[in-house]
């Protein structure tokens, strides 16, 4: 295997999977290059975990072709297993062992040899800030420490391809940032990373490529910027004290969309265009229409997500609807 940045770490073509009569994955195509992060974004039940379980050799697909780290998932699963690391949604640690023993167990099973194994264990404990807790049982570990240990165990064999299934679920903001930093470092060291998440900010922050999965289908694909460019541009929301003011403003600005329930006028404005914003406010001022408040909205992945998964009609996005609000129905 060559370590060139353009080598695909993961190639999946037309992957289908059904559980009984329920179609979970419908001709899914994915490509993740070495040294890059592919985020698989989707709500609960979209099939994210299933594709990870298939590509990491835990379960088999019904059809489709899959290569991971240059090995065929179906015909050479052990070849794949030797080169991948998997961190699932639920911490895959041994609760009756200490942190150091957990890592040593992984080192032994990766056949690193005694000295190399011990060196690697010490190195990872240090890197994940677990040296002080190394010989303590996992019962005293916090959620964040368990996650860090979990990730450290994944990295012990220096995998070429890493699967991270919702790696920051349940983490506090600080641990989340630490995890993000580690993921970035791994990618820059040449590892191909497939990351699943239902947090759009996480995908926005980390991913080189984003694939949006909804009900087993890839409904959108591209970089964060590409996806954002697919939906309507930014707008300004003007808040008014009473319906009369709102009506007058709506007459004054014919391109705007008034919302009479919330007393809000939504005015399209090109991204970050200060001049057009100033002109808009000047116009209102001259017409003696008092604006109570204003908020600027630039399109983000929330909008993309809601637009492409059909949970919302594009152009009528509610400012306050975060992904969590939309998916935890």
């Amino acid at each position, binding site marked *: 295997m060559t370590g060139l940045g353009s080598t695909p770490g993961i190639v999946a073509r037309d992957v289908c999977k059904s559980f009984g009569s329920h179609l979970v994955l419908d001709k899914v195509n994915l490509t993740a290059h070495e040294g890059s992060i592919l985020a698989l974004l989707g709500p609960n039940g979209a099939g994210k*975990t299933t594709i990870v379980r298939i590509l990491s050799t835990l379960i088999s697909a019904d059809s489709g072709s899959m290569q991971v780290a240059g090995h065929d998932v179906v015909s050479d699963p052990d070849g794949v297993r030797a080169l991948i690391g998997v961190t699932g949604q639920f911490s895959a640690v041994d609760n009756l062992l200490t942190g150091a023993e957990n890592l040593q167990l992984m080192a032994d*099973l990766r056949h690193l040899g005694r000295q190399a194994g011990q060196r690697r264990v010490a190195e990872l404990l240090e890197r994940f800030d677990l040296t002080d807790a190394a010989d303590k049982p996992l019962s005293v570990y916090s959620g964040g420490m368990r996650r860090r240990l979990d990730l450290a165990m994944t990295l012990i064999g220096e995998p070429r391809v890493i699967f991270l299934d919702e790696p920051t679920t349940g983490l506090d903001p600080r641990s989340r940032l630490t995890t993000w930093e580690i993921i970035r470092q791994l990618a820059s060291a040449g590892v191909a990373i497939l990351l699943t998440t239902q947090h759009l900010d996480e995908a926005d922050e980390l991913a080189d490529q984003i694939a949006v999965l909804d009900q087993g289908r890839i409904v959108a694909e591209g970089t964060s910027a590409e996806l954002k460019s697919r939906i309507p541009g930014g707008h300004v929301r003007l808040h008014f004290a009473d319906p009369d003011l709102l009506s007058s403003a709506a007459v004054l600005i014919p391109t705007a969309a008034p919302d009479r329930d919330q007393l809000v006028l939504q005015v399209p404005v090109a991204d970050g265009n200060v001049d057009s914003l100033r002109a808009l406010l000047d116009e209102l001022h001259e017409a003696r229409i008092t604006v109570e408040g204003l908020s600027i909205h630039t399109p983000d992945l929330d909008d993309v997500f809601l637009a492409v998964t059909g949970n919302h009609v594009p152009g009528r996005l509610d400012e306050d609807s975060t992904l969590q609000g939309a998916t935890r129905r």
Partner: protein
Amino acid sequence: MTTLAYTLTDSRVMLRRNLKHQLRYPSLTLMLVGLPIVLLLLFVYVFGGQLGAGLGAHQGRHAYLDYVVPGLLLITVASAVQGTSIMVAMDMTSGIIDRFRTMAIARASVLTGHVLGSLIQTLAAMAILIGVAFGLGFHSSAGPLEWLAAIGILALFAFALIWLAVALGLAAKSVETASNTPMILILLVFLGSGFVSTSTMPAGLRQFAEYQPFTPAADTVRGLLTHAEVGHHAIAAIAWSVGIAVVAYLWSLSLYNRRRAVEPK
């Protein structure tokens, strides 16, 4: 390294993991070792006087102690494999198994680790029980060769039941089920020649008792330790052990490989 070498290495690593688990979870280990000892005291001192009166030539409490030790050795096996089943089920409900399954390790090494670990635990528990029995005045006429043969029969029988317990642990939907199902094995010791001679049982039960695996195992060990007739019992005990081991091994592997093949979390 060759595939065989990897299999051995991985199994050794898993065995070490299993032994550490036993040390870190001592309450289970103590319970499994303690139960046969409590039963030994109960059967010798509470029931022993009366049960001993029913024995043939040599009567009394001490004669009953000599009679009942093989039965309690089998209780030790049955009790220990309950622990195996619990440990396997606990393992399967934790995330670490999925991690093992995404690693290039010998497939069955997780199970092999459980089996070897349980075998060591069972042999140690039997050694403790025999020690206690000697302390109470147990007397055996067996020479070193007979002892060796008895230990061999018990180890083989334990090996078979441990694989059966592994399969039961894998098949169980919860740790509670895994803990309850093997209790049937303890009952089987009572429904055989472990505590009383099958000849005293009513016809239907006697037939069942004579054709279930614990009876030839108990008779063989008793024969070896007390210089009584062993005869065809040994062959039956070995045949049962090998049969159970092979079936349970294949069943375990198929359960392990099929596990979670259908459900997405």
